[in-house]
């Protein structure tokens, strides 16, 4: 047996720490991306639900909905597609939460934390991988939408900006996912987060205008961050919009930028605290 030079980099300067924090995060990102490449079916599983939803709403329920004022079913695809994009981003926090719970449950976090690596890389690497994952999700959904006949009415730059708004929402929800992932006990419990995700995604303007909902529910739906992102990208895509006089609907673009910032301001410290709690 040959002997390998096992001398690791043991420097403990701020520079070395920063360098390794980035390098370790990237190693984790590569690991996560390897998973996706090895198991492309992951995308099918995670996108299956939104795709079925869009087919159902566009072809089953949509024909009964008049969202454009031009008769039932008219322009419903243009209305629903942006909602579908936003909903997929919104549901994404479950993927993050599930993954965090899994690395906790499988003992990876303990192993990592007992190693000389930057332990925060477990979380930051996960976050970066999730954003890349979300971008691929979005690309697949847009491709499907284009095949079904959806078109953005906005310029190319504005359309790309809309996609950035979607990823901005997803980024904020990563911290929600990390926090919840540390909070729940095991992956079974993480699976139950769907009970939270479903109303969060659906009580919104994603598939139906809040105007059509009972008063209080309409208010909740209109103020849902998912609705703000949906409203903003509908404006950009020049999709049919039904506004019902909620103040926030008239400021969708600002809200689509502000909401994720608010979510991050709350959940980033919570996620950091949950991670530090592992020391107890």
């Amino acid at each position: 047996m040959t002997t390998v030079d096992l001398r690791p980099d043991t420097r403990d300067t701020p520079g070395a720490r920063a360098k390794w924090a980035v390098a370790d995060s990237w190693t984790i990102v590569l690991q996560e991306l390897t998973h996706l490449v090895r198991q492309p079916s992951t995308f099918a599983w995670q996108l299956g639900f939104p795709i079925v939803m869009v087919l159902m709403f566009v072809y089953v329920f949509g024909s009964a909905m008049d969202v454009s004022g031009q008769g039932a079913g008219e322009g419903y695809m243009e209305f629903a597609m942006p909602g579908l994009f936003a909903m997929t981003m919104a549901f994404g926090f479950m993927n993050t939460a599930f993954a965090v719970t899994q690395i906790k449950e499988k003992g990876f976090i303990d192993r990592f934390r007992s190693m000389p690596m930057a332990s925060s890389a477990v979380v930051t690497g996960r976050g970066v991988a999730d954003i890349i994952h979300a971008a691929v999700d979005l690309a697949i959904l847009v491709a499907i939408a284009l095949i079904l006949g959806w078109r953005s009415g906005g310029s190319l730059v504005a359309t790309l900006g809309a996609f950035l708004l979607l990823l901005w929402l997803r980024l904020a929800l990563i911290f929600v996912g990390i926090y919840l992932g540390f909070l729940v006990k095991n992956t079974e419990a993480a699976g139950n987060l769907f009970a939270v995700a479903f109303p969060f995604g659906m009580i919104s303007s994603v598939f139906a205008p809040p105007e059509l909902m009972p008063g209080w529910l309409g208010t909740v739906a209109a103020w849902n961050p998912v609705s703000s992102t949906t409203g903003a990208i509908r404006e950009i895509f020049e999709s049919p919009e039904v506004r019902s006089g909620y103040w926030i609907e008239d400021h969708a673009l600002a809200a689509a930028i502000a909401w994720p910032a608010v979510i991050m301001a709350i959940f980033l410290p919570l996620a950091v605290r949950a991670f530090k709690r592992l020391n107890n």
Partner: protein
Amino acid sequence: MGVLVTTSDYAVLAEGLRKRYRDNHALDGLDLAVPYGMVYGLLGPNGAGKTTAVRILSTLITWDSGRAEVAGHDVARSPRQVRHRIGLTGQHTAVDDKISARHNLVLFGRLFHISTAAARKRADELLEQFSLTDVADTSPKKFSGGMRRRLDLASSMILAPRVLFLDEPTTGLDPAGRREVWQAVQHLAAGGTTVLLTTHYLDEADKLCDRIGVIDHGRNVVDDTPDGLKRRIGKERLEIVAAEPEDLPVITGLAECAATDSSDVVVDDTELSVNVPVADGARVLTEIASDLRSKGVAVADLGIRRPTLDEAFLQLTGHTTTQSGDNEEVSV
């Protein structure tokens, strides 16, 4: 790796470790002193504080008071120095099922901050050392429990750590898997790695450990060798099984002479056995053997019985290692 300058002769040193969770004392003044090169077993029932001790010593959690030193470095003050010198295999197998066994080791190598080339070479070495070369490019998903645990062990051996922590290394494994893991641990110990393991399997402690620390309610109960532990509890007993029923009275007479307590002579007429407490078992055994030979009495069996660790544990702590009965016990 270079020669380490250590402040103590112990690989693991803990003094008066205390750790309290809201309502219970997980550790209540635990002391540990594990010399280099030893396999030390922390034995105790569920909730005794074994895992808490390992989590503190492997830098995972903070504690309330007391001092801990691992591989010559203070755990509280220089956790990073400690992390360069330890390996941890926790209760759950930290194996990535979506990538090959080799890829798992290379990944951990990278995270241990050795170069990719060194990580690859080290992976090959470890695969060979843990007899996983044949399945190196297979997903661990298809592995047996014992193989997964071996890969897990290999991952914590990347930097050839001086101290290896194993938290219940064989819990949930079938007997074959347990044997595989035992062999791997014995191999590591033979190579000079200090091993601190926790277990609630008495046979495991007996088989693997040079020394056993029995803990209960977060406190040391006793620290001894497996044999010493057994000797400490109750006396050694001489047991003679007669070959013919008519020899039983003669044998009983001889045994009574050797007994340290004549009121504790157990004669079993159906098994044809006599069982008495003795002191200095080895001497008694040779004397009895020559007495039997001179009297021309043949016996079916003759031996010194020491109490099992199970009995020892019951006597030391007042309860057995498994309180709830949810963990299967494998007999020695």
